[in-house]
């Protein structure tokens, strides 16, 4: 099966995916278009977290905090000053990035699992703060209501179909952007750090700075997703930004394939679209999901669609190496 899939040139994949993306909404109803819309929003979140977890290898289990900062920035400014939603995209990105900058700085030196715990802590503090509403801005447990709709060239984006194109345009932009980052000196530096931070430092890479950059950019993209989510829902509350949201995003990255953009899309599909298809068993779906997480880690730890790098590693291990006179001697 794998062999036949590989025989198809990558370009053909892109064309097919592009066509499907355009045709899809016209073949289905509003319900399924909305499923695709949420797929898109979570794909953005997965892609943004992938920069932090996948590229830089920093275990962030509090990503919902950045998503929340972006969503609330848009919601509050839009409802109080009536600034158009799409103008708030860069602002949401900026506030989320700034917030990430502040909280990430003191914790970057922490080792993997400790970082995990601290990010959980930050995520929860953000949620509790939103509930407690200390400055009277967040609307407490009820959240912010009456968030405006985005408008583009005079068209107010309200129907699922309109949102579909807006959301997927953003997804494609983010895919393109993260792909370019991945293939740049910045992306490589993140990978070096994930592989061996000390060796990376010895090569002259400012490890702390690059880790911070990963957090800031990942958070900025989560902030963008937050902006779109807020305008899509028109109402946001702290319930949308719980620890389990962070777990879902983390799982998307890990199940799809750490550091792999196609993997993130597949992971998101697995998390959102498959459960929709089996809605009849919805009560048991989280149960199955929990079991699937364990099974994945045991039987396919590299994820459903691992990055090329990891895939190569797996192939080499099973087939052996025909390389120029080099054999494994150690």
């Amino acid at each position, binding site marked *: 099966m794998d062999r036949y899939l590989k025989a198809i040139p990558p370009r053909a994949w892109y064309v097919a995916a592009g066509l499907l993306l355009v045709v899809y909404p016209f073949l289905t109803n509003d319900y399924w278009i909305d499923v695709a819309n949420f797929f898109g929003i979570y794909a953005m979140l997965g892609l943004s977290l992938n920069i932090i977890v996948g590229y830089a290898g920093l275990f962030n289990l509090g990503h919902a905090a950045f998503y929340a900062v972006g969503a609330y920035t848009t919601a509050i400014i839009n409802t109080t000053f009536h600034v158009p939603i799409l103008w708030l995209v860069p602002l949401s990105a900026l506030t989320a990035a700034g917030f990430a900058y502040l909280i990430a700085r003191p914790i970057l030196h922490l080792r993997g699992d400790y970082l995990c715990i*601290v990010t959980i802590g930050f995520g929860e503090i953000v949620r509790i703060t939103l509930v407690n509403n200390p400055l009277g801005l967040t609307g407490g447990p009820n959240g912010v209501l009456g968030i405006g709709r985005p408008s583009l060239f005079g068209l107010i984006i309200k129907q699922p179909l309109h949102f579909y194109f807006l959301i997927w345009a953003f997804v494609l932009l983010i895919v393109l952007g993260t792909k370019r980052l991945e293939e740049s000196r910045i992306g490589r530096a993140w990978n070096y750090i994930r592989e061996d931070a000390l060796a990376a430092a010895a090569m002259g890479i400012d490890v702390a700075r690059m880790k911070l950059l990963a957090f800031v950019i990942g958070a900025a993209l989560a902030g963008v997703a937050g902006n779109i989510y807020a305008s899509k829902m028109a109402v946001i509350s702290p319930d949308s930004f719980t620890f389990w949201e962070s777990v879902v995003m983390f799982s998307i990255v890990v199940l799809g394939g750490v550091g792999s953009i196609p993997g993130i899309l597949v992971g998101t599909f697995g998390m959102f679209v498959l459960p929709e298809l089996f809605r009849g068993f919805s009560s*048991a779906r989280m149960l199955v999901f*929990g079991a699937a997480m*364990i099974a994945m880690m045991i039987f396919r730890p590299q994820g459903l669609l691992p990055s090329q790098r990891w895939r190569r590693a797996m192939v080499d291990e099973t087939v052996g190496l025909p390389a120029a006179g080099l054999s494994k001697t150690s």
Partner: protein
Amino acid sequence: MQEFLQQVVNGLTVGSVYSLVALGYTMVYGILRLINFAHGEMFMVGSYLALSTVSVLGMGQVASGSLGGILLVFLISMTAVAGLGVLVERVAYRPLRRASRLAPIVSALGASIFLQNAIMLIYGTRFKVFPEKLIPQISWEVGGVKITLMRVVILVVSLLLMAALYTLVQKTQLGAAIRACALDHDTARLMGIDVDRIVSLVFIIGPALGAAAGVMVGMFYYQINFVIGWTYGIRAFTAAILGGIGNIPGAMLGGLILGVLETLGAGYISPGWKDAISFFLLILILIVRPTGILGERVAEKV
């Protein structure tokens, strides 16, 4: 002053529950360097099992439960959860012992989600209520501070269990084996210790203690729901970090300190921020002194 003392007493009660649960985190971390995210669920399952036992036995319906009955509730819950702990270790952690650090974290989260939803499916999403008459409503006043029987039970049982664990680890041969495994698996193996057995043992002791805490929380607050595993779990974990993760007396101390701080915070600052206190504390410790109060700083070899 009276109010302050009352808060301290209340804090110590909650804190001893945190301590019991924290022991499970700290022991597993000590042996496997693994954060057992599913440990909070052990506590939760323990609480639900106690509820079922109580209702099957028809305890607390007309009169309060007999001492023997209550002991039976503890015994059933602790044994079953210990079995569950061993099972989780076998299924979700043991196959990953040599995997990357990411894999066990995800697997542990998976186990946590699985257990939470299993309980939700079995018992439903609503709060479940323990019979009010289960524990006699006796209380005393000491210097203006009100102390209920259940608070005394929680404190005494917790301290007894902790003392037993401490003796086991420090004074027995089995305890020496546990300590050896915590230092170095390979060396322990060379000394003839069956490391897998010790790991299983840790996954018996930790969940059993967590279950005991779950039973007491159910009896004390009367109502439980399926998210208490997460809410108590994260606090207990904070307690373990506070005391120095991997350190058994540290977990006990950390739990008591956290319980008192939290109760005082809720009383003097605002109950809404109570939940945030443990997180603030957690972050603060990890930034300022990641080794906790009793933990030792270990130089990293380059």
